[in-house]
């Protein structure tokens, strides 16, 4: 059977499951929740998925992943609305959209900005899912040859990239990674049964549950942060004059920007570390460079909205490629999704494609469905979404806290987990205060234990010979890339020559 015929079969099965009434409902809930958290600043997809994670434990995994996929795509879309209307980005990935989006609003062209963001998100989401569908099986074929050494190298690459590419100081990105790795070492060592860092506390023997860690650091940490700063984000949204639609001229300018944004976003998403925010900024830079009038950027150029909004949606699809095909996430949100797979006892990667292909293809099919739902549900509802900003923040965060606590508690019916989550929330608060990024910590909490296992497995196979990581070609190449990422600032200085500090 040819590859394309096989793909067709898989998709047919995937769609038949994604379109089942219950799963369709989950998709609808997912995109609605996702758009809502996208609109609300301070609450992102990683937080939302981690908060819902324990609550979906009893559900069928297919339904749960359709829900999470919808949230992820929805959040990427929802961030743009408030960027455009109130210059208040709901997500970091929509910061750049505010430049031209808000300028368009002031000129009375809010409808066109919202339309190009929405349609661009739809186009990008759909093409990115298509590329995900083509690329993931190819990567799976490659990954079949991978042993512990290759997985170890890949995880090091993911951790180094996210830690090193985080905004701000590289030292702090590295620290964030190390903190996560250290948290991951707590508990009984699976290979020898030796307790580590448990200090005689029985509740720590099982280690720090990944779900508890993500909920604690993202949700509880965010509540602490709000408590400490009470950043009142105000601004009354401008009424959307006219319809949410594009003129012929706006179509002509948007389409190429959408397509470029899609390609940029997808490949930025596939790479670990970069993610949606980098994708949106890259796309903005490209659009400005290619524009006939670069001076119009910042003054309401529609390409400045169309490109970045397509790019951040496409990056969501791209970031699912390494997660599904290799089991190696490259961002905070996909790390939480890996935690979800682990919660269900599933291991993403080649095995998932062969053993649970139903789940994989249902998820992929549901992403197409979610995209359609987003377009259909959201354009007419933009006024409703904007009203969300009027919900009093204290009550909103109190509700986040309630759901976070509920989820952590019901995980094992153990109050100790709640205490750990609250404690980690405080840790996250101090990290945030000192500009230490959180996503590398979460990724390290999830990957750390796997990293150690693969390392020790590789060393066992080689009989204790550490050169195994360099004599296997794929592992050597990946570790070579790690060196390049680590030395990147030095390399760049050598290439460009010394620059002013």
């Amino acid at each position, binding site marked *: 059977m040819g590859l394309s015929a096989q793909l067709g079969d898989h998709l047919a099965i995937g769609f038949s499951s994604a379109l089942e009434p219950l799963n369709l409902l989950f998709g609808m809930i997912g995109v609605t929740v996702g758009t809502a958290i996208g609109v609300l600043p301070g609450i992102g997809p990683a937080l939302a998925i981690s908060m819902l994670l324990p*609550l979906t434990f*009893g559900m069928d995994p297919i339904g749960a992943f359709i829900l999470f996929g919808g949230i992820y795509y929805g959040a990427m879309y929802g961030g743009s609305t408030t960027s455009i209307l109130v210059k208040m980005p709901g997500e970091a990935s929509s910061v750049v959209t505010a430049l031209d989006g808000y300028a368009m609003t002031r000129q009375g062209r809010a409808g066109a900005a919202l339309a190009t963001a929405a349609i661009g998100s739809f186009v990008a989401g759909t093409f990115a899912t298509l590329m995900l569908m083509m690329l993931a099986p190819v990567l799976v074929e490659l990954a079949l040859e991978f042993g512990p050494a290759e997985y170890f190298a890949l995880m090091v690459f993911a951790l180094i990239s996210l830690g090193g590419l985080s905004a701000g*100081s590289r*030292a*702090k990105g*590295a*620290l964030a990674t*190390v*903190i996560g*790795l*250290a948290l991951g*070492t707590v508990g009984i*060592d699976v*290979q*020898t*049964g*030796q307790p*580590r*860092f448990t*200090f005689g506390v029985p509740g720590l023997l099982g280690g720090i549950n990944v779900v508890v860690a993500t909920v604690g650091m993202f949700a*509880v940490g965010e*509540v*602490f942060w*709000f*408590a*400490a*700063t*009470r950043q009142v984000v105000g601004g009354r949204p401008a009424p959307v004059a006219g319809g949410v639609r594009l003129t012929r001229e706006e179509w002509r300018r948007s389409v190429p920007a959408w397509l470029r944004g899609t390609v940029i976003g997808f490949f930025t998403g596939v790479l670990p570390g970069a993610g949606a925010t980098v994708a949106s900024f890259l796309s903005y830079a490209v659009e400005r460079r290619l524009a006939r009038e670069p001076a119009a950027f910042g003054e309401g150029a529609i390409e400045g909205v169309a490109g970045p909004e397509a790019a951040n949606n496409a990056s969501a699809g791209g970031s699912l490629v390494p997660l599904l095909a290799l089991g190696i996430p490259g961002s905070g949100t996909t790390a939480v999704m890996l935690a979800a797979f682990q919660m269900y006892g599933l291991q993403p990667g080649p095995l998932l494609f062969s053993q649970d292909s139903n789940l994989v293809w249902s998820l992929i099919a549901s992403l197409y469905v979610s995209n359609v739902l987003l377009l259909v549900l959201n354009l007419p509802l933009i006024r409703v979404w904007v009203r969300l900003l009027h919900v*009093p*923040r*204290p*009550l909103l*965060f*109190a*509700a986040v*806290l*309630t*759901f976070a*606590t*509920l989820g952590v*508690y*019901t995980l094992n*019916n153990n*109050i100790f987990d*709640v*205490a750990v989550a*609250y404690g980690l*929330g*405080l840790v996250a*608060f101090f990290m945030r*205060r*000192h500009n230490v990024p959180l996503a590398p910590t979460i990724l390290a909490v999830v990957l750390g234990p796997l990293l*150690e296992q693969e*390392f*020790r497995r590789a*060393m*066992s196979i080689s*009989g*204790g010979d550490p050169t195994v990581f360099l004599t296997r070609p794929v592992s050597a190449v990946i570790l070579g890339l790690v060196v390049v990422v680590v030395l990147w600032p030095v390399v760049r200085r050598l290439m460009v020559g010394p620059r002013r500090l």
Partner: protein
Amino acid sequence: MPSDRALGAVLLLVSVGYMGAAALISEPEGQYAVIGPRLFPLVIGAGWFVCSLWIAIEAKEVVALPVIDWRVVSASALAFLVYVVVLERVGYLVATTVFVAVESRLLGSRSWWRDVIVSIGIAVSVYVVFRLLLGVRLPEGILG
């Protein structure tokens, strides 16, 4: 003193403590495993140590840290602690209602009646959906 230098110093101490605890992990004798349970924590501890130094050295100028309302942070932490301690004794409904109302207040809400109504609404709807509809076990406490 640049705040990052103080941060680096504190982290340096933590990393030394972590490495000390890592050194105490006993390596099981006579096992076939080539790498024991101690190596990774030691490497991580060393990495932490290096990062702390790096942060302390990198700190050049005094950076303005965000203004923190420490009273609210400590009051919230206290409220969290009390909630954790009393949740299983008092029960989900009562403890959560009080906790949400208090926490909303701490987070800056200034309308008691609205907070109370919302907190009752949140606690009751969670209880109804999760305990009664989905059968999730929640602490019953004094109402049980």
